[in-house]
Each structure stands twice: as structure tokens, then as C-alpha cells.
């Protein structure tokens, strides 16, 4: 018997074995070690970059006036956006009873957390005196001063820290039963202890399950408006300012759509190699990949519509500055990046209309990389092109990234995948109990005459 979401011949035992083997018994192949090595190297270079910026300051980046927000903010918005698809899959699809989320939700939640970790470092380093970052938190202090709640920077702090905490709680809570499975499956003494402590003494009783299901629904219900609010607030960092190209009411929904679009691309970028190298094809099936490819068309079209609205608003704004911005984007110094962005975000996802192409893993993988690139460029264009041509022609100045800017970009990419590699190695990457539940549900549906 087979089903396009999951292999129905799997039993409780074989599901457990398949998923826990990756953590407990399987010797990691050369690809895993190679990947870990490369990403560890990138992570170390990133750590060096962070130390350097703590010592010397933001002058090591290419930022100056008028482009005071360089790669750091581009990367920040990009990473936060990537996280959003994880919450979309784990929370919104849970509320919508979408069964296909089951085997990819743990992954995408992990992706969310790691992406937020990468994102959070940028505003912190951008502060100038990063060791005083806690001043943004409202705590009683001897200086007698408080944060400024009319500032989007403070909103941002609350949004990102809440998002990180809620994602972490959601992820961990859903993992407790699987950690208990690892505890019971593990043979080594240390592993048994570590997983035992992490699983908090979970006993699989029906009372526990009832509470877990209720709590997951509640957290999903809370995370759904949260995910929309987070990127809206990030977009307000821009929209509240009066810079042409930023000061626009379309920004919050446009940012949220872009975030989910780029996040789906990143899920595909990670899931396709993982299912291949860890032989998880009968748990993460073609159906999952094609569903996400279709969602890329949907979200990509919303993003394209967002571009259209934004361009029309600028063109018909009656403001010379806004009009100049539009022309400068399409024909100015950074025009090639603009057109690459349009190709990657607007045109490329539409090849998924063809069934053959969206079922070809290599094609989907390459497209997902292109979308990641396109969405990064979108943030580059919003941040840098808008700032470089400000109101006064005498103040115009181009921005060029320095060596350290690239180190911070690729360093966080390295850190992100480094954490993903460790996650696959030490934690259950697929929700064991949810797959068991899915198989039982699908099987019992088949049996009903």
C-alpha cells in the first residue's frame, strides 16, 4: 500500500528506527563531515568578524553616510524572512489541518530558530556599542532612563525576541516525546542521560498527549499572528522613515509575503539534499516537495503583485523623489541587480507550473537557490538603492561592500548550515510521533469499508 504523503507499509518500529538511526547508530558519511567542516570554517570566520567588530566598530563595513545601513540590515531582513516559512509550516498549516506538514515541520521550525539566531546578530553588531544592547530592554537602572517606545528599533527588539522565544518553546515542546523515544532507544550511558534530561520524564500517557495537542494548538494560534506581526514590524523600520522607496503603506504585507516566499525556498534548499543523503524519501515524499513548489508560485505571485503596486504608487506619487527612485532602480548603477531580482523572484518560480519540472529534484533545488538569491537582492535594493540616492543630489554616494561585509554574509550562511548539520546529527529531524499518528490515521481510513 502506498500513499503520496507517507509510505503506509511503515510500522511504529520501522518509523522509529528510520528516524532515530540517523541520530543514534548511523555513522555519518563523508558528505556530512565535509559539510560540517566547511560550515565550521565559515562559522569561525564569522566569529572572527564579530570579535573584530567588537574591537574596532562598524567602520570595517562599507557603510557611510548616506548609506548607513549596509549588508548588515540586508542580511538581517533576509534571515528573519527565511525563518517565517518555518512558522508558517509548523503553525498555520497545523491550524489548517494540512497533513503534509507532518514530516517537514520539525525541520522548518529548526530552520526558523537558526535563521533568527543569524538575523539577531546583525542589528546587535550594527549598534556601534553592541555590548550595551541590553539598554533597549526596559529594566530599572541607576541611570534613570528608559527605552523610547515611539521608535521602531524598540518594536523590533520586542518582535524579534518574542519570535525567538515562542519559536523555541514551540519547537522544544513538540520535540519532548521524540526526545523520550531517543532516551528509550539510546544505548550509551551519556546519551541516555542527556536525552533523558531533555525529555523531562515524558511518559506518553494519554493525559500528556491531550495536553500536548491542546498546547500545540494554542501555541500555533499564537504564532500565526506573531509571524505576520514580526515582518510587519521589521518593515516598519523602513516605512516609518521618510526615505523615498521606504515610506510606503504597502510595506507590511509586501514584506510578509516576501518573507514566506524566501522561507519556502530555503526549506526546499535544505530538505532536498537531506532527504537524498539520509534516505528519507519515503518520509519526505515527492508530494511534499511539489506542494512547496506550488506554494512558491503562490507566494511568488503575491510578491510580484507587491512589486507592481509599489512601482505604481511611486510612479503616480506626484513626487519627483519617488519617481527618480523608480528610474534609478531600473536604470541606475545597481540596475543589473534589480533585473536579476525581477528574473529570480517574478519569472523563475513560474516554471513550477510544469509538472515535469516541479517533480525534478535538481530543478527545484536550483530554483530554490535562485529564489534565495532574488530575495536577498530585493532587500539589497530596498536598503541600499533607496539610501544611495537620497533627496539631495549632492549627497548621493554609492555603496560597496568590504571584505568583512562578505565575511558576515557568508559567515552567517555557514553558521546557519553548521547548526542544521548538528541538528540532523543530534536531534530527531522528523517528528516521530506525528509520522506514526499519520500512518495510523491513513491506514485506518483505508480500512473503513
Amino acid at each position, binding site marked *: 500500500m502506498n500513499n503520496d504523503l507517507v509510505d503506509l507499509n511503515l510500522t511504529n518500529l520501522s518509523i522509529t528506527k528510520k528516524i532515530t538511526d540517523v541520530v543514534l547508530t548511523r555513522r555519518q558519511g563523508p558528505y556530512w563531515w565535509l559539510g560540517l567542516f566547511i560550515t565550521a570554517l565559515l562559522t569561525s570566520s564569522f566569529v572572527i568578524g564579530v570579535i573584530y567588530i567588537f574591537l574596532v566598530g562598524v567602520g570595517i563595513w562599507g557603510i557611510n553616510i548616506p548609506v548607513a545601513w549596509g549588508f548588515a540590515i540586508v542580511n538581517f531582513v533576509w534571515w528573519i524572512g527565511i525563518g517565517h516559512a518555518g512558522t508558517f509550516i509548523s503553525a498555520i498549516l497545523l491550524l489548517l489541518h494540512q497533513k503534509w506538514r507532518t514530516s517537514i515541520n520539525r525541520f522548518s521550525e529548526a530552520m526558523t530558530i537558526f535563521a533568527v539566531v543569524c538575523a539577531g546578530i546583525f542589528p546587535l553588531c550594527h549598534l556601534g556599542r553592541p555590548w550595551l544592547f541590553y539598554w533597549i530592554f526596559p529594566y530599572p537602572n541607576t541611570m534613570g532612563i528608559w527605552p523610547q517606545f*515611539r521608535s521602531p528599533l524598540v518594536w523590533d527588539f*520586542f518582535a524579534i525576541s518574542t519570535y525567538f522565544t515562542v519559536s523555541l518553546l514551540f519547537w522544544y515542546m513538540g520535540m519532548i516525546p521524540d526526545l523520550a523515544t531517543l532516551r528509550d532507544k539510546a544505548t550509551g550511558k551519556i546519551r541516555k542521560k542527556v536525552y533523558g534530561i531533555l525529555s523531562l520524564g515524558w511518559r506518553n500517557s494519554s493525559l500528556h498527549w491531550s495536553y500536548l495537542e491542546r498546547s500545540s494548538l494554542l501555541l500555533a494560534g499564537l504564532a500565526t499572528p506573531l509571524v505576520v506581526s514580526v515582518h510587519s514590524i521589521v518593515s516598519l523600520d523602513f516605512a516609518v522613515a521618510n526615505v523615498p522607496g521606504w515610506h510606503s503603506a504597502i510595506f507590511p504585507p509586501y514584506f510578509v509575503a516576501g518573507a514566506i516566499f524566501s522561507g519556502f525556498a530555503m526549506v526546499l534548499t535544505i530538505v532536498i539534499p537531506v532527504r537524498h543523503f539520509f534516505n528519507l524519501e519515503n518520509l519526505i515524499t515527492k508530494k511534499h516537495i511539489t506542494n512547496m513548489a506550488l506554494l512558491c508560485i503562490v507566494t511568488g505571485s503575491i510578491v510580484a503583485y507587491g512589486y507592481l503596486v509599489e512601482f505604481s504608487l511611486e510612479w503616480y506619487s506626484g513626487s519627483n523623489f519617488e519617481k527618480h527612485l523608480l528610474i534609478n532602480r531600473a536604470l541606475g548603477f545597481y540596475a543589473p541587480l534589480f533585473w536579476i531580482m525581477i528574473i529570480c523572484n517574478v519569472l523563475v518560480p513560474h516554471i513550477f507550473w510544469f509538472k515535469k519540472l516541479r517533480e525534478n529534484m535538481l530543478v527545484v533545488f536550483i530554483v530554490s537557490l535562485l529564489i534565495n538569491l532574488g530575495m536577498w537582492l530585493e532587500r539589497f535594493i530596498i536598503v541600499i538603492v533607496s539610501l544611495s540616492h537620497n533627496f539631495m543630489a549632492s549627497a548621493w554616494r554609492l555603496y560597496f561592500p568590504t571584505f568583512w561585509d562578505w565575511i558576515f554574509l557568508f559567515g552567517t550562511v555557514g553558521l546557519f548550515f553548521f547548526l542544521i548539520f548538528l541538528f540532523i546529527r543530534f536531534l530527531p529531524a522528523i517528528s516521530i510521533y506525528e509520522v506514526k499518528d499519520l500512518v495510523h490515521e491513513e491506514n485506518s481510513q483505508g480500512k473503513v469499508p
Partner: protein
Amino acid sequence: MTAQFEIPEVYGVLAEYKEVHELISATQIVLDHGYKKIQTFTPHPVKELSELLNHDTRLIAFLTLVMGIGSCLGGYYLQYWISAISFPVNIGGRPYHSAPAFIPATFEITILGAAVTVFFSFLILCGLPRLNHPLFNVHQFSRASIDRYFLFVHANDPLFEISSTTQILNQSSALGVYNVKR
């Protein structure tokens, strides 16, 4: 004389099943006998069992609502108190109590308060963390998280009597029935 009254401290009786439907029918039988303090252990959530055992989990939703509203009001008041009372700063003549600007942080604090409540009330209501438990003394119980289904009758059930309870469980299609020591 050092007479010691050794009362065998029995925690309950545990029965092991291979299939989920066997556990469900056994649970039904035990319930029909009038037992109240029973628990089931399954490798994945089973809706029928939650319905049979009638778990009421509404408290967690209520707590979340209360704490959510509390964080919402508290978060807003914090911003009001800071910006209008404790540390008023005139920025371009904007009002000290700028309600619209306080909404984003209020919203985030609301979600944070509610989500933290969900997590901790989940743990507390489940009685976790608790790393030691009498059930873990039964060697076979480790399969509850892997592939086997278990039914447990607690010793403090008024009807509990070790031989008769064991007998009832033995008559079901159990693979094994184990005494759980405290």
C-alpha cells in the same frame, strides 16, 4: 526483636499490547468494570483514548487567556508609565502618551506572555519535569515511546486488588501484565 512489617508497595498493574485497537478495547473493559484511576501509554496520540478517559484540558486555554490579557494590559501600562510618567521626553512635540506607537510592543508582549504560559502550564499540568517515575522501573515500559501500547491501573483505585485486577488484564489480549513497584 526486629520485626519489620514489609508492606509490598505496589504502585499499580501495567499491561502491554501490540496493537492500538487491543488497547482501546481493553481500556473499555477495564472502564466497564468500574475502575477510575487508569492511564494509557501510547507511542503516538490516540484520539479514542483521550475521549474514553475523558481528559479535560480546558484549564490550559483559560490560563493562557488570562495571562494573555494580563500581559497585554501590563505591557501597555509599562509603556505608558515609562513614556508619560517616569521618563517623558518631548520629541518633536509628539504626545507623551502616543497610543498608536505603543501597539506593536503591546502586541508582542501579549503573545510572549501567553506563549510562556502555555509552555509552563503544559509542563505543570503534565507533572513534568519528573525524571524518576515508578513506571520506568518496568523494563518493558521503554517501548511505550517506540511501538507498544500500555494500560495502567493505579493501586489507589478503590476497586484495585492485585490478583483480580491482574486477572482482568490477563483476560484481555495483553502480551504481558506487570506489577509496578513504587
